[in-house]
């Protein structure tokens, strides 16, 4: 049995294709898309070699020894998926979509073991083939259905929960799309790199209500329940580039003269480090607002906004 971890983009088809969403099929891309896409792919190969070889080694070990595979799953996936499922409030027998499952879909395994019915999809046919075999070998084929599909082609309305793997890219375009299409009752979980992992995985933060669970080994899980997405959100949660209309302003003598008043259009132009102030501009006028105050300024975001790649 040849297996590898879902977070390995080592298939011959290349990283982007293995990740469940490809650029070509995505009509949401602007004209600037292709160049950026290519650049990211190249930089991925450049930066990634040492980390990739480490992961490759583990994969190889997993494929050869089922004992090693069990340990690997235990260390890297058990707590990760359990904490996500708990934060997402996943019920047993829920229908879950797993985008970018890869050839060794440990996340799907964990979800299935937690009682969910999983539909795992990947865009790479070889990975799908291997994942099917792995699921059968683990005795979970009754609960896991592996499909060869592009993640964005799936009708997400059928699912109670959507899990997006860490390596899925470009998250900035996939996540807002999933958020738009999914039902109000469902929950979206995706993973962001923190720390050094940022160097080779895309990071994404949505300006909507979300839970963030810090995970082992430089990852964090973002859990968004669609019905909890408020119309309004605190200014302190918006990232640079985001804009919206001010819905509520606390009583503070300095805010209204700077234009920070109800109904005004506001743009976040920066966030200072060490929990420093949020720099905003209203009517072409810049001001810095302390984060504790920005928490109480409520904004209706203009759209689901692309956020920073750090």
């Amino acid at each position, binding site marked *: 049995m040849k297996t590898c971890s879902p977070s390995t983009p080592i298939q011959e088809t290349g990283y982007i294709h293995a990740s469940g969403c490809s650029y070509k099929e995505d009509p949401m891309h602007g004209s600037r898309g292709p160049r950026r896409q290519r650049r990211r792919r190249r930089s991925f190969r450049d930066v990634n070699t040492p980390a990739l070889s480490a992961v490759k080694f583990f994969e190889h070990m997993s494929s050869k020894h089922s004992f090693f595979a069990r340990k690997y799953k235990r260390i890297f996936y058990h707590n990760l998926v359990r904490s996500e499922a708990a934060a997402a409030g996943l019920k047993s027998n829920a229908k879950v979509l797993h985008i970018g499952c890869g050839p060794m879909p440990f996340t799907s395994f964990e979800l299935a073991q937690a009682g969910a019915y999983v539909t795992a999809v990947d865009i790479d046919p070889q990975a799908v083939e291997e994942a099917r075999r792995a699921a059968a070998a683990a005795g979970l084929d009754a609960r896991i259905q592996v499909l060869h599909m592009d993640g964005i082609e799936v009708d997400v309305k059928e699912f109670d929960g959507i899990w997006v793997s860490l390596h899925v890219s470009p998250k900035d375009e996939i996540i807002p799309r999933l958020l738009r299409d999914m039902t109000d009752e469902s929950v979206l979980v995706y993973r962001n790199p923190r720390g050094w992992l940022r160097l080779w995985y895309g990071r994404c933060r949505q300006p909507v209500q979300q839970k963030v669970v810090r995970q082992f080994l430089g990852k964090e899980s973002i859990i968004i329940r669609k019905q909890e997405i408020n119309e309004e959100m605190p200014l302190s949660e918006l990232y640079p580039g985001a804009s919206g209309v001010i819905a509520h302003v606390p009583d503070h003598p300095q805010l209204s*003269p700077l*234009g920070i*008043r109800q109904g005004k259009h506001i743009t976040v*132009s920066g966030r200072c*480090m060490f929990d*420093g102030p949020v720099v905003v501009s209203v009517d072409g006028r*810049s001001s810095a*607002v302390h984060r504790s105050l920005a928490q109480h300024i409520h904004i209706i975001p203009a759209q689901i906004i692309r956020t920073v790649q750090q």
Partner: protein
Amino acid sequence: MSHDSRFQASVLLIGPPNVGKSVLFNHFTGMEVSCANYIGTTVEYSTGAFRGLSKEALLIDVPGTYTLEASNEAEKVAVEMLTHPTADKHEIKRGSSHCGPQSAYAPGKPSAVLCVLYAANLESSLHLLSYIMDYQLPVVAALNRVDIAKKKGIHIHHDKLSQILGIPVIPTIAPTGYGTEELKQALDETLFGNGQNQVSGVQSTDPLQRWKHAEDLASRVAHKDHHPDQGSTPGDLLTRPWPGLPAALLILLASFGLVVGVGMGLRQFILLPIFRGYVFPFIITAVESILQPGMLQRILIGDYGFLIKGIEWPFTLVFPYVISFYLAMAILEDSGYLPRLGALLDGIFNRLGMSGGSIIPLLLGYGCAIPAIMATRALNTRKERLIAVSIICLTIPCVSQTGAIVTLLAEQSVMVVAGMVLFSLIAAVTTGVLLEKLLHGPLPAMVIELPELLPPRPKVLGKKLAARSRRYITDGALPMIGAVGIASLLYETGIMAVFGRILSPLVTGWLKLPEEAAVPLVLGIMRRELSILPLLDMDLTGLQLFTGALVGLFYVPCIAVVVSTAKEFNIRTALLILLGTSSTAFLIGGLAAQIGSILF
């Protein structure tokens, strides 16, 4: 209450912060009130005779306010001035950051208001104007900075605005003087002509309604060419960690280099040769020809001869740094960079119990602690002010001290100067962290406007430098000459030797300095730089120089600073700061001496 007999009218200069009121004030009165490109420069009102009107009138520069709801100190001053100005309370609080013939002002209801509107942001200016018009006084409006508005693509029909409001509205550009003549004429007409200019206010108490009114009015008279792109401006970038942080480091290093480099250059190559080559030989021959050798001659031209040291120190040692520091500061002030630095550092400053806005008083402290202490008034909480003032008094050397320290240590090596800077930074952070823990109070939540980034104008810089130099000679150099005079008297009469013996356990035992180093410790109480300067002629070792400079750095702030601290807070606070600084000075200086003597 009536006006001073000399003045037949008084005009209040009111407007939002950082709109250029003080620039207009200086233009109309010929005075030199501090101006800078950030809010809170004017924390006190200043008065001056309005030049060029047909009759004598008094112009009063009021601190900038956004509203007239008296929600902070500056607004309270403005409201007081509009209704029944009682000058006495503020008169006492005045410091040296503003100068002017305060006594000329006798309280009374102002005859008219000159309201300065910010053309690039008409809305909030009109909001303030609506408050002012509620007071039923004649109003003339200056529509200032029309050049910035034009750059932003905003066109304002000032005639239409004037028509709607029923008051004269004159477009101006204060730094260049554009429109000021028309403004003067309009004001003259309003004050002494027979033109009717009695305005009626909005008479609305609901703040939202008032804003609505201002917004409507602004949209009626102003139109925008194009929407300025929402992309990040260079100003925005400076508040982001990248590239803001490296940029901040570069800018601060460049300023430090400018201060030390220009200062040392001026001293070494211009001032010192002139004074040593021409002035001192002349003085010495003059004194020697008049006086017989004796105590009097020694007082004048001896070791502490006040005609020698009293002229050498203020003019060749401190003066170059006054020029270089205020040059750097003026560039920083006028560019509008400092509030951005404040925003960038706010997160760090919060951990020291301050908000990013404290960066302005702290930097001003490198010039002189007194205006810095005055500038802390713009800070929001008392805790924040106390921490800022403590850091200024303890760890920030004033420009004279900097001059003295650099001169003292640069002969050893520039690295020692860098070591001092490091020491003072560590001490500042420690003070902040400790006081943050000790003092109770909420974390300051800063809201700060980030003004337009503007290139500093050489002409304005030159004017500022000239004003600073004049003020230094009257307020700095003359007292220093006097203090040196007293010192030479004490020294030659042998009183200083008594002090030296009393302090010898501390000075020779703990600090490992020669006995005569007690002299600067006594003098330092009078003026900060004198705690260091006498060490220059003592042939000290490198370690002793470092110890001496360290003690001098942390040692008590000068009497004037203690007095202004007592005025701003209370005597207890001032005494606590005095005690804190002197004990820190001896503790750190002693530790450096003791550890240093073991190591070297």
